């Protein structure tokens, strides 16, 4: 395992790239439907909640150094139950990858490829994913780091919106009440998912324990702030009455921008956004394939990769209408809330009660 370790700096990029994904486009809308113009506060709140989960994940992985969640579960739960939970978690991550594919297909087919059959769009990404996960975490981390500057490009695109914003739209602040804001943060937490990839990637990370925590926590903070910036921008760009009918406000906003050399910036944005989607898809697919490897006790996860890609692709083609997609995202969102956000805390408690702990293996 030591051969493929990543540095704690690389872990930062892994977490950031896994976190930033499909959500970026539709999050302002989904938060607005619940918390109205205070949606950005919901997000900040969600960012704080997520920090607790991160703390739990980190503490859990600290107890079992250099082990992924799939190694840890049997140790906490005991043999048989552990296998069941491994299966459950693998399935959970698998469905997150499926959900990413579904939402990605949804947006791509709505914005650029109206005629292209969904399976083509889905399988293209799935196969790219297969190619990526047949490698090691180190190489993935390098790639994730390589594409991070693209986020800056996205940032500058969105910054351009400030040429035509109405700051008054964000007022009156806090009018919706704390409860609504809290309610909105549930959706926000789901969009911040991706930090749970640390459950696997932490096992490969070098560096002191505190540094790791700092890195994950900081990564999540950066993503939260980035999302918050996007939400805030869309809220002051669009009228509160208008945003309800615009499910992808970011793209819609960019659609109107034109520069001297390019017009329709949304197409450029969308193309770069696909990279972010792909990285979060790849991040989760890697986590899933690690689970599959553990369950089938394969020597190398490479073997399972193509089959996994095909399975994920096929499942993702199932939902056909917008309502079905909504249902899928609702249920998968709910399970991820349980398995990715709450259960690390429970697992940590369980491990503490049973006093399961392992010394660090002296690494060469």
């Amino acid at each position, binding site marked *: 395992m030591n051969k493929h370790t990543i540095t704690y700096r690389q872990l930062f990029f892994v977490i950031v790239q896994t976190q930033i994904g499909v959500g970026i486009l539709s999050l302002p809308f989904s938060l607005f439907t619940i918390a109205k113009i205070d949606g950005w506060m919901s997000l900040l709140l969600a960012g704080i909640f997520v920090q607790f989960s991160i703390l739990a994940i980190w503490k859990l992985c600290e107890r079992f150094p250099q082990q992924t969640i799939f190694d840890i579960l049997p140790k906490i739960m005991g043999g048989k139950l552990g296998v069941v939970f491994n299966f459950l978690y693998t399935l959970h991550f698998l469905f997150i990858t499926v959900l990413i594919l579904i939402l990605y297909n949804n947006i791509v087919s*709505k*914005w*650029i*490829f*109206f*005629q*292209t*059959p969904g399976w*083509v769009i889905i*399988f*293209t990404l799935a*196969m*790219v994913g*297969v*190619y990526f996960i*047949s490698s090691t975490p180190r190489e993935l981390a390098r790639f994730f780091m390589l594409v991070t500057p693209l986020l800056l490009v996205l940032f500058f695109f969105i910054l351009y919106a400030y040429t*035509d914003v*109405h700051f*008054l*739209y964000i*007022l*009156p602040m806090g*009018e919706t009440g704390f409860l609504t804001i809290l309610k909105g943060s549930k959706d926000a937490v789901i969009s911040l998912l991706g930090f749970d990839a640390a459950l696997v990637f932490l096992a490969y990370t070098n560096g002191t324990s505190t540094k790791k925590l700092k890195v994950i926590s900081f990564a999540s903070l950066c993503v939260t702030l980035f999302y918050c910036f996007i939400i805030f921008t869309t809220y002051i*760009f*669009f*009228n*509160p*009455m*208008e945003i309800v009918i615009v499910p992808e406000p970011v793209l819609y906003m960019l*659609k*109107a*921008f*034109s520069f001297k050399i390019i*017009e*329709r910036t949304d197409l450029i944005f969308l193309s770069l956004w696909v990279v972010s989607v792909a990285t979060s898809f790849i991040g989760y697919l890697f986590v899933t394939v690690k689970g599959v490897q553990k369950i089938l006790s394969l020597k190398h996860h*490479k*073997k399972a*990769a*193509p089959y996994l*890609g095909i399975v994920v692709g096929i499942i993702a083609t199932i939902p056909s209408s917008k309502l079905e997609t909504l249902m899928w995202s609702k249920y998968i969102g709910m399970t991820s809330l349980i398995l990715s956000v709450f259960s690390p805390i429970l697992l940590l408690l369980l491990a503490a009660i049973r006093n399961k702990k392992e010394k660090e293996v002296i690494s060469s």
Partner: protein
Amino acid sequence: MNQKGLILFCSLFLLSGCWDQSLLSETKLISAGGIDYENDGKVISTVAVPQAIAAESGEENVANQIFSTSGFTARQSRLKLDREVSERLDASKNLVLVFGEKTAKKDIYLLLDVFYRDPKSSLNAKLAITKGKASDVISTKFEETTSSIGVGEYLRDIIRSAEESATVPEENIQSICPLLFDPGQDFALPYLVPRKDVVDVEGIALFSGHKMAGTITGPDAVIYVLLTGEKSTISMATTKKILKGQKENILNYASIKIKKNKRDFKVNVSSDGKISAHIDLKTKVVVTEYPSDKLGDEKVLKKLEKNLSRVMTKDATKIIKQLQEMNSDPFGVGRKVMAFHYPTWKKIKWSEEYPKINFTASVDVEIIGHGIIE
């Protein structure tokens, strides 16, 4: 396995066709569109498609093809058009969208919905209202359009130059969208008047909600743009009559160019629920025409400043009065009330309240230059 995956991936590409291909060479690009209501309520869409006629020497001539159909909705008439035209019609490069005055007086959003909904539509197209029918503006052969550019480009350019001289506010399909939905703010669009072989941007058409409410024309439009808080545009200039009874009529006038415009916009709600609004403009100007000269004298200068301020304040007050009569709130007084006095906002019905509020304006002119002679 790696290689197998790669082969699979490659074959995916080869197997796939090009479903969404829309070849540029096989599309007809709409450069300008006009929408009118017919008397029976049907929607008439008129589009101009520039067709470049390539010449050997590299010079190109543009011929405008004009198509027009009617249907029950904007989209339906477009679909009909598509069937009429030899290649695929594409509105993604549309430059201008024109509404007839009569049409604009009905709910404009009903016609715009198709532009907001279509992912391929061009949201940065300019919007304009025209006197008479939009189809006339689109299909008339204007002097300039025949030579080298299409109708769309011509219309866009005249609107753009009007924006630069601050006679119309800068808007496009997307930028009015938030305002269409805003109960606390309205907007204004360029108002075109077709003449024999040119199109004039006469002024602005003001909206109240989704409907056109009236126009402000001529030099007043510049004051309107100043009141919106526009800082300065390339050639924001106006000519004002500041004196009376000079020997030559021309001596009564002074032309200024606005260098810097600062708006202070206050909305107050008194304790008994009375809403009042005040716009205070501080403009720094350069005198570009003043035949009486002697601007080197401080007294003359101060007097000119005072006169200009007085005249412009009067104009501004007049415009605000007009706006209140039209029940059009393009400066967003309502928005301010909503943002800072939310409880009051919830109590009142803005469209009824707006004409009654105490809305004043004052302009303070400061001359910072007067060209290269005194």
